[in-house]
Structure formats: structure tokens, C-alpha cells
């Protein structure tokens, strides 16, 4: 496998975490333009844990996941009363606030003669975990894909549970949910928190793979893309957002002739897909129909 292919695939997998986190928020009926914030938090936490403290990767991933989740819970707790447009705006503000803060935090360090640590717009350099652990690009690809598959399996299992069914109900019709005894704000909080964890985990891997991160990487466009992936891929199954990522990064980015026009091509593609598949490629109804066919279970 060429280096280029391996690193493109790794990017697909990394962004998939972000897309899945946007998916989890959409499931409970909220639109977040701010998932990149939790991705960034995960990235900076792992950068700090590994590059400054020499912490183990497991510890770094764990702390990033927790930090992403806590930040998302904080956001959810602050704006749980808001929903719809207001939540979308609040999430956007939150992410931009974080990015602007990261631009101002300058604690440059020198470790083993290399500059590292948070250095405002210069970013966080020399996150050398993959070099120190002799990870080739393909090794890291395998690590990322295995983690992603594990997450997908978890989500697939989760999909058919009552919890997920109720979460989707909250997202569709919160009043009906309440009439069935489902408490919407709990589901919203839980899923937004969960989305933060997923984004934080992905961000952690992103930092390790890139070895250098900077606030500009976590701008609004990243969040918009994450959202668009689920919108075109469909909200019916966790595979939806992955299809979206695959189309954008896997397909459009690898067509080099398109490189300059990728944003335009992606925008156009999103528009066309949504005209043909308003509910996304894997719409909830299509997925449920499939399920009905696969197993005609007992009531």
C-alpha cells in the first residue's frame, strides 16, 4: 500500500470519528456545528499527555475521551433548554470560543531539544509518539481502523436497543416521547456527552497521526463537513456518516484533478444527493425496512 493511500485511508477513518459524533447529536434531534471543539480537545489532551508527560497511549486516549465527553456535557448543560437553531448556534459559538482560546494559550516548551507544547497559532509540535513507538503509517492505519470498527460494532449493537429507539424518538417527536414516559433532556444530555467522547477519542488519534496540531485545523469548516457527512450518508445507521466521509475524502480528495475545486465539488454533490435522497443515502426508513426483511422477529 502506498504511503499516500494509507494516509488518505487513515484520514478517512479519523474524520469518521468526528462524523459519528455529529451523527449521535443528530439522532436526538439536535444539530451541532461544534463537534470539532471536542475533536480539538481530544487532540490537545493527547498531545499534552504523550509529548509533555510521556504518558502511555492508553492513558492519553482515555483522558481525551473523558475530556471530550465532559466538554460536551458542559455545553449540553449550559444550553439544554435551548434547542433547534439555538443549540446549533450555541455549539458553533462554543467551538469558536475554544479555537480562539487555543490561539491565545502560549506555553512553549523545549523537550529533548525540540520545541513542543501549546504555542498559540504556531500550534503544538513534535507529538512524537508514533516515531518513538516505531509506528509506520500502515501500522497507524490499522490501529485507527481497528478502533473505528470497534466503535461501529458498539453502535450497531446499540442501534437495536430500546435506549437508541427512544433517543431517536426524542429526536423526532419530543412530545410523543414524553407521552410515553421518555425524558427528552436526559437523552439529549447523554447523547451529546457520548458524541463528545467519540470526537475526543478521534481527536486523540488525529493528534498522534499528524504529530503537529494547531487551532486552525479545528475551524468551523471541519464541523460543517462532519455534519454534512451524516446528512448525505443518512441518519438511519452508523454506516451513513462513514459513507459521507468516504465520498468526500476517499473519492473527491483522491481525484487530484479536483483538488482545487474540492469544496465546490463537495457542495454540489451534497446538493445533488439531497435532491435525490432527501433523507440521506441510508435513511431511517430504508434501514428499518431492511431490518424488517432481515429478521421477521416475533412481536
Amino acid at each position: 500500500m502506498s504511503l499516500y493511500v494509507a494516509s488518505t485511508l487513515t484520514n478517512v477513518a479519523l474524520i469518521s470519528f468526528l462524523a459519528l459524533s455529529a451523527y449521535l447529536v443528530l439522532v436526538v434531534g439536535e444539530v451541532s456545528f461544534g463537534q470539532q471543539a471536542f475533536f480539538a480537545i481530544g487532540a490537545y489532551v493527547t498531545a499534552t499527555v504523550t509529548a509533555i508527560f510521556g504518558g502511555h497511549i492508553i492513558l492519553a486516549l482515555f483522558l481525551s475521551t473523558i475530556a471530550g465527553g465532559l466538554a460536551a456535557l458542559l455545553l449540553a448543560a449550559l444550553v439544554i433548554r435551548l434547542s433547534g437553531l439555538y443549540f446549533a448556534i450555541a455549539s458553533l459559538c462554543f467551538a469558536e470560543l475554544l479555537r480562539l482560546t487555543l490561539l491565545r494559550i502560549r506555553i512553549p516548551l523545549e523537550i529533548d531539544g525540540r520545541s513542543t507544547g501549546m504555542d498559540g497559532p504556531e500550534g503544538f509540535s513534535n507529538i512524537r509518539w508514533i516515531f518513538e513507538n516505531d509506528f509506520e503509517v500502515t501500522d497507524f492505519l490499522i490501529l485507527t481502523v481497528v478502533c473505528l470498527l470497534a466503535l461501529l460494532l458498539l453502535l450497531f449493537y446499540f442501534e437495536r436497543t430500546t435506549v437508541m429507539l427512544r433517543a431517536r424518538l426524542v429526536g423526532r417527536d419530543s412530545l410523543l416521547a414524553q407521552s410515553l414516559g421518555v425524558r427528552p433532556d436526559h437523552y439529549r444530555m447523554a447523547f451529546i456527552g457520548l458524541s463528545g467522547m467519540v470526537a475526543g477519542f478521534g481527536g486523540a488519534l488525529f493528534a498522534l497521526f499528524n504529530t503537529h496540531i494547531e487551532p486552525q485545523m479545528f475551524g468551523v469548516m471541519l464541523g460543517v463537513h462532519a455534519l454534512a457527512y451524516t446528512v448525505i450518508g443518512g441518519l438511519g445507521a452508523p454506516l451513513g456518516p462513514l459513507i459521507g466521509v468516504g465520498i468526500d475524502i476517499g473519492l473527491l480528495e483522491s481525484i487530484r484533478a479536483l483538488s482545487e475545486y474540492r469544496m465546490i465539488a463537495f457542495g454540489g454533490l451534497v446538493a445533488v444527493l439531497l435532491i435525490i435522497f432527501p433523507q440521506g443515502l441510508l435513511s431511517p426508513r430504508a434501514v428499518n425496512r431492511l431490518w424488517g426483511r432481515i429478521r421477521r422477529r416475533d412481536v
Partner: protein
Amino acid sequence: MFELRRITKSFGGVHVLDDISIVLKPGDRVGLSGGNGTGKSTLINIATGFLAPSSGQILLDGHSLNDQPPWKYARAGIRRSFQTSRLVPTLTVRDQFRFETCDPARRRQLVAHSALEDVLDLFPFQVPLPVLRKIEVVRALLADPRVLFLDEPSAGLSGEELSAFARFLSRNVSGDAALLIVEHRQDLMRVLVDEIVTLESHVPSVATAGKPAEAVGDA
């Protein structure tokens, strides 16, 4: 025991409900009738936490439920159906019944009694309206409610279907549960309810009670 005590409701100066009191004891079967726009649905919305009354109290076993969100009512066993059927369009009928973690045997029994087996794998848009209403009633019954409010569940049913539906209700609403049903059809009322509350469209509106098929008397 569930009680609506001296409920009034006005929408921006328009009085819809004026001093309505209703007590529902276990086993009660009450019909709610009244012309269009007399506030039947409004009363159900208030009794299930979907609307706040302008004044008056909602009590369950003597505890006030005023200002509580609808999910608390539902968890306390106060369930409802909606006048315009409210199902998740992306779920098959089978899956509409999965929100409740109830005994599968009970679920099977309800589905069998309501003759819904044939539509289980269909989506709501593939199912005729009267059947959708029945699905909603079954969904509400899955929770084994203490107090059940049904808002015109029989709309669109033909005579034959109507008596089957009445049988289904009397068979499946638990003997300890109270049922309040909005209904226009006297024949259904006769077999199902012991008491009829009529809302009148006068302003102020008043509730009157009487025996089924009997002229409306004083409250």
C-alpha cells in the same frame, strides 16, 4: 385516584374550560362528549401535562401534578392517545411498540386481541387511519396505565369494526385502570362507559354528567 379539580383554561381571553372537576377512580369508565371546539382535547392535554391550566389542580392520589412535565405524568401511569394519530413515520408498526419495556407475552396478547398482526411489518403511511388509531391505543395500553385518556380513538371505524373495538377496549383496559374516552358515537358509549361528561360550548363552558344514552343532567 386521579382528580381534575376546578380546571379552567382560556386561550388569550377565549374561555374554553370553565371550572371543570372530574374524579377518576380505578375501574371508572367515563365518556367525554361535546361539540366541536368545546375543549375535549384541551381537557386531555391538561390532564396529561401537555398544557398548563389557567387555574385549577391536577391531583394523583392527592399529590399535585401541576407544573410537572408530560413525561412525569406518563411515568405516573397517566397515558393518552392523540386526536391526530402520532406515530413515528420511519418505524414499522412492530417497532412502534418497542418503546415500552413490557412483558413480551402481554405485547403479543394485545396485538392479537387488536387484530394488528397483519400490519406489523408496515409503516404508518401504509396503514389506514382507523388502524393507526388502534395502534396508538395498543401503544398506550402496553404501559398498563392507571389512567388512560383516549381522544376519539374510534374515528373512521365502521359499525362492525366499532363493536370489535369496543370489545377490545373492555377486554384489555385493566379493571384497576380508569378510562376517559372522547367519543361521539352513542353505541360505543353504551357498551363501554358508565358515565358521560358533556362539555358545552357556552361561555363559560360547564360540564354536565349523566348516564349513557340518557339526557344530560346537572353536574
